[in-house]
């Protein structure tokens, strides 16, 4: 019967879903480790992986994770829009103000479309 899901297939499909966020598309990175970036101050009504507390903040690209599905378009059925995801380092004081410890930092995984050169 077409469309009938067999119990034995569930696990396979689940694992496939988990791995499918990483893509092999040959997309050029817009940034490289060490680049200073600023996050966009955007407030999309749909899904986003850009938390409010890092919007409009300056950070430094720590490393490039590779190419992934862009959640913002994918969540709305608007395509995968493959792009690089970086671990971006933000000084705690950039996010939480002068009372935050000087040496603390927060690393957030962010997509190309969330970032501009600082």
């Amino acid at each position: 019967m077409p469309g009938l899901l067999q119990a034995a297939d569930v696990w396979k499909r689940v694992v496939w879903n988990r791995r499918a966020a990483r893509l092999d598309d040959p997309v050029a990175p817009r940034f490289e480790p060490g680049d200073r970036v600023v996050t966009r101050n955007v407030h999309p009504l749909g899904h986003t992986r850009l938390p409010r507390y890092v919007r409009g903040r300056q950070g430094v690209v720590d490393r490039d994770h590779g190419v992934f599905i862009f959640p913002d378009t994918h969540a709305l059925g608007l395509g995968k829009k493959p792009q690089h995801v970086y671990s971006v380092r933000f000084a705690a004081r950039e996010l939480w103000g002068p009372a935050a410890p000087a040496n603390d930092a927060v690393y957030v995984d962010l997509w190309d479309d969330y970032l501009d050169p600082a």
Partner: protein
Amino acid sequence: MNGVHDMGGMHGFGPVVPERDEPVFHAAWERRAFSLTLAMGAWGRWNLDMSRFALEQMPPAAYLGSGYYEKWLFRLEKLLVEHGFVTREEIERRVADLRAERRAEAPPDPAKEAQ
């Protein structure tokens, strides 16, 4: 969306206290909510990001007052209704039936009998 799920930097929720020897599920219905969510996800009608977005649309007060698998159940029902697997009315009718069954099975309450 600027929803209640985006909690980074919010104050007042108290410390995170890990439960000692925490079980994977705290009740049988949680196990069922988990397995139903995975099984229905395997149909491929929605992707992981759509699924996350569905959860983010839980009404804010309910979101903050619900446990982990209560949120999963909300999301599952929303996705099932939106994608035409069941109707909201079918879910509500089933809940009403289960409530009625439970009332019928409950032992008589001695306090009420005495009145």
